[in-house]
Every structure is written in C-alpha cells, then in structure tokens.
C-alpha cells in the first residue's frame, strides 16, 4: 500500500516538476556541483573559410572574423559561444556582388589530457545570410538570399594554443562546419588564429 501511495505522490510531484523546465535549479546537489563560469575568457579570432565539395562551385574562399567567450562547464570541458561574420562572393554570375553571413555557435571544448594541449570542440551552428543587394529578383539564381535566409548545422573544431603569457593566449584552430541545406548539406572548412584573454 505504501508503495502505491508513494507512486501516486511521486508521480504527481514528477508531473508538477515537469511543468517547470528550470526546476533543476532547485536541486541542491546539482547546484553544489555546478562549477560553471568559475573561469571565463573572451576571445577574438579571424582566418579564412574554404568551401568544400560542390560548395566550391558556389562561392569563393573568404576571410572571417569574430568574437566569442569561453566559460568553465565541467573540470575539463568549457562552454563556447561564438559570433562571426564573413562576406561570401559567388562564383557563378549572380546579380549582386556578395552575401553577408553572420554565424552564431554554441558548443563545448574538451581538454582531453591524452592529446594535451590540443582541444577538441563541437556544437551547433546557425548561419544568417542576406544578399548585398537592394534589388529583389526572386526568380533569379541567388534570389532567395535577397530575403533573409537562415540555416542550422553542426561544427567540429580542433584548437591548438601555442603561446601563453599571464592571462593572454594565442592559438590556431581548424573547424569543419556543415549546414543542413537542401538538397544536400553544405560543408566549409575554416582555419584561423585566436587571441584570448582570461578575465577570471
């Protein structure tokens, strides 16, 4: 009988908790173990993006730049948030010069001891694009980009810090990014330099 009552009571509690997606903040054990943001750094980075596969027929290589933050998530895992910008020029003859692309990424960096100091990272990416044109010729190739277009995808990244002085560090990174476009995914490879400052 006690088990039956316990099932009903705990079931009700479970349902009530399900209504609050932030209920985990009331879990004292989870709060006690949470080391997030115990260190925090900001970075700027820049480099070049290389379209891969049949994307090479669509756009030219281009430069990119951006900013981001690193924050402690677990002991050997950092959370990452990045914002970047690039201007892509089409290879085919399109009625405008290029496309503004803003990229936002949320992911994690894993400092795996076995390959130290190399850091492995991955996460989700979102790219927002808009053609550099005031003319909207929707039926022409590239016409959809005259309106805003957004696509999500994933990325994987390898980072190599090569220089560190006090709270400053400089490193290289290589990143593979895939956007879930139609009819096939669109792949790009980027390589660049990161300049980072640890704030705490």
């Amino acid at each position: 009988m006690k088990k039956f009552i316990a099932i009903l009571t705990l079931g009700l509690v479970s349902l009530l908790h399900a209504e609050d997606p932030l209920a985990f903040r009331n879990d004292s054990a989870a709060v006690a173990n949470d080391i997030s943001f115990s260190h925090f750094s900001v970075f700027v980075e820049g480099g070049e993006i290389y379209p891969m596969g049949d994307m090479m027929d669509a756009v030219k290589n281009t430069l990119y730049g951006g900013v981001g933050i690193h924050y402690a998530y677990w002991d050997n895992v950092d959370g990452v948030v990045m914002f970047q910008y690039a201007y892509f020029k089409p290879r085919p003859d399109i009625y405008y010069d290029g496309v503004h692309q803003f990229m936002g990424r949320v992911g994690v960096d894993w400092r795996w001891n076995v390959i130290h100091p190399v850091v492995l990272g991955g996460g989700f990416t979102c790219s927002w694009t808009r053609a550099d044109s005031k003319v909207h010729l929707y039926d022409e190739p590239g016409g959809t980009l005259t309106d805003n277009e957004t696509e999500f995808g994933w990325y994987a990244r390898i980072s190599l810090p090569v220089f560190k002085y006090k709270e400053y560090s400089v490193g290289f990174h290589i990143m593979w990014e895939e956007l879930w476009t139609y009819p096939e995914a669109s792949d790009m490879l980027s390589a660049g330099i990161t300049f980072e400052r640890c704030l705490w």
Partner: protein
Amino acid sequence: MNSFMNKFVAALAISACSAFASVDPEMEGMEVVSRDNGTYLIGSPTYYFDRALGAGGIHSESELWTPRKLNYRLLFNRMSVLPSWDPIEAPSVWMKTGNELGDLIYRDFLMTHNERPVNRTPILEAGVRTPSFHGFWATFRLFQDDHYTFYSAWEYRRHVVDGSFSFFGENWPMFSSAYGGLGYTNDFVNASVLAGMEYMWFFTESSRWIPVQYKPRIEARADVGNFTASLVFEDGEYQNKTKKETGERKELNGSIVYNCGESCKRGMLQLSAGLSFRAVDDSGVVYTSLDNDLVMWPFLEMRVRPNENLKFDVVFGVNDRDWLVQDSVEYGIPVYDRMKITFGGKNISGTRLNPIADTYEYFDGDTISLTAAGRMNLMQASIRLDDTLTNFFGFGARGSLWAEYGAETFDVDKYVVDGIYTFRHGDVGRINSWIKGVTGEFWINLWYRDLLKFTALTGFEHIEGKEKRFEIQPSEFFAEFNADWLIKKTFRISHSIRYRSDAKWNLRSKKPYVVKGDWYWDATFEQRFPKYGLSLAGSIIQALGKEVIETPNGDYSRVRFYCTAKKAF
C-alpha cells in the same frame, strides 16, 4: 523491502516511464510531433489528429471535452493547448528560435528557379515573467510557429487574407500570438489578466482553413481557495478576400468551478462541479454558428475511493441540447512486493464529444450540421501489469478490448477540388453499428541513478467494424526506444527513435489518403547551469523519416531544429 526503498524504486520507475516525454516540444501543445505510440497526424500547429493506441474508440483525444481542458483553446471543435495563454509559472525570461531544415543558402547559386524546393520556415518565441513584487507580477509573450505553412500559403491561403496575417515575416503561419498582462499570486489567490492580439487559421469539417484575427483577445483567470474561474473576450475578425467576404464574432466564454480541496481529496467521496459557457454575437460572414448564440454546460466530477486499491471516476455534463458521461473504474492489486495488476473499465456515452463547440458550418451555400442525432457509447475493459524486477529494470504490459456504437463520423455528400485543396459537403453523422478493437502494449524500463533512463515500448491494435467510415483508420503498430541521459547533473541528452505503421484518412478526399508508416528520430541537447537557473537547449525533430503531408489540406511535416535559452530570475 523497506519503505524508503519502496519509494526509491517507485520514483525511479515513474521517471523511467515518463522518459518518452523528454524531448523538448517546439512549442507548448506540439508534444504530439514527438509521439508515435498511437496515431498522431499533424496538419498544422492548429490542427492535428491525436489518438493514443489503446485509448478506445475512433475519435481523437482533442475532440473530446473534459474538465481538464477548461483552459484549453477551442479551435473549431477541438480542445487545443496551442496557442497557450497559460502564464509561465516560473519568473524567468526565455527565447526560442528555429527553422525547418533545408534552406538553400549558397546552393541557390547552383540551381534555377524551377529546381528550387519549397522554402523552409521558422519558429519564434520570446517572453518574460517578472519576479513577484508583494505578490504582483507581469508577463509578456510573443510566439509564432511558421512550420507546416509555406506550401499551402503560396498556393492558396495568402490570397484569402490581407497582408502577411502575422506579427513577423511573410510565411502566413497558422498562428501568431502576442499578449501581456498582470497577475497576483499568494497562498490563497492566483489571478491574472492578459490582453493581446492573435492571428489564427483553424480547420473545419469542410476541410477549409478559416482565418480569424482576434483584436483584441482578453483573458482573466482566478484561483481563489477551492474556486477556479476564467473569463475570455474575443473580438474575431473574419475575411475571405477572394470572395470579398468579411465578418465579425464577439465572443465571451469562460468557466467557474468548485474543486475538491486538499481535505476533500483525502475523503472517500470527492466532488467537483462547474459551469462552462460560450456566448457569441455574429455579424457578416463568420462561416460557423452556435445554436441560439449560447451554450451553457454545467458539469459534475466525482471520484469514489472506497479503499486504496479501488476507485471510480465519473464526469457528467448536461444541458438542453446534449449530455456526456465519462466514467471509469480501476482496481489495483499488489501481487508481489514489486508487482501490481490493475483491472480497468471505461465508458463514454453522450450525444456529442464536444458539447461546447459550434453547431453549424456554412460552406458555399451548404449548411453543415456539426451535430448528429442519437448518441455514442464506448466501452473498454483493460488489464495492466507493472513490475519493477530490480532497482534498475522493470517491465509492464497492458491489454484492452473496446467496442463503440454510434461513433461520430462525417457523412460526405460530395467533394469539391479547388487548387491544392479538396473540400467536402455533408454533415456530421454516426456509425450506427458496433466497432470493436483489441489492443496490446508492452514496455521495459531501464534506469541507472539519474544518469540514464531508457524505455522501449511497443503496441498493436486491431479494429473491426461493419462500416469503416472512420475519419481515420488508426495505425496498427508502433515501436519506440527512448533514452534520457543526464551527465553530471548538468548536460542532458534526450532522444527518441520511433516507428509507426500506416494510418489512413478515409473521408477528407475522394480516395482514401494513406500516411505511410516511417521511422523518426528526435533529440534534445541541453546545457544546464543549476547555480544560475540557466538552460541552453537545441532540439532536432522528425529526423530520418520521409517528409510527408500527414493531414489532407495540411502542409509538410519537415525536419526542424530549434534552440531555446531560458533564465530564471
């Protein structure tokens, strides 16, 4: 086993059982997209057929009125969670955005206009609920789901309305809603008043999408002690630009309920009672009507619990037009320390599944009666076995037999094809013969602390009847594998892979429309920050399966990704 272990095992078993619900829905009320343990066919955020395997009868859950749905939205004849005006309970700020996968981006440079796929469309939500100040709080929310829209918008719907009929973009979404308001909460009172504007398309028996703009919509709610009350005013503007028709409906609806309180719930007899009502004032062309412009629906809820193993539940409502009874009995027998067998019986009888809905629809000179003469009667008997074999593994099974007489259906007179749409003339009717079904479900649960919760479940259903004039022939088989991982209490991965067999719409087109069975995969990845009450989540929905139209005159159900950020104050 001692009491503590009993509770521990029970808690884990429940957690494991509810694991399937863990993939984040794209919006409140869209949980059905990630369900296949039955027949869930989505035409748009504002219309879907939802019937759990083993529910009994041939109707969908949202067609049936129950007191639990008093704060749901009435979308034509369905009770819908979405678009939800339930104030978010936790003081917090949140934002959500996402998109159906498959925009072209730079692939647009490599193809001609004619080769392009249909555009993919986003969702958007932002909101806030302030912390309480001496019990007072404020809230604001804007939300819009553009999924299931673009194909039908460009082929048909955009010609019917002025402008983009939404707060953002030009995808003619099926709803776009914004509200703000104030509330007051203490130990005795929880009250709120919200006001806003809303664009909506609802789906009718003729298979039309009817646009309405609520301008304004005002909703007040109050929970005072054991009483709950709500009052809604909607000024709905209707239009059909191609037919040069306009109309307006001013509607007042709401409810007042006496709920069984805490002390009452400890007693053997638990009683609640209430009244739900709608009053409308129509002018011009509004495409539907309510008999006498008024419906009053008094109802009574009763639970009798002679002992801990036995309970009877009854919901009864009646007015001058309709009556509806929903009753059930459950008898649970603890067989062994960890095993329980539950015998159940259910009955639904009544003249109408949803007695507060409109009574007529008007379509091209035809008056479609939305009520049918006579009554329906559904009976179901079930047996359920739950067993937690160890403190990390359990299993269960449920079987049932059901029979329904007088099931609500639609008597089609003729079909009309208009572009991509097929409409129908006729009236709501009944199948005045017995439909019988047999169902079986089996599940296993596996869990390890709070790190892993895994559920595998499968089910089948076979339905027989002389007249197969069902709106939907439900799918007969499903299988699901669901897992929740919570790593270091801060990183959650919830995913679900599922198969559902074919389902068939019989009455919405000249030839039956088969929705082929398929596998689907959904997943949510969430970073949690318990110390800061912060959550960052990304979800991918409807992956693997072929993108199809699941409801005639609906739109494609596509793979989509969305991310959500929430921060508690």
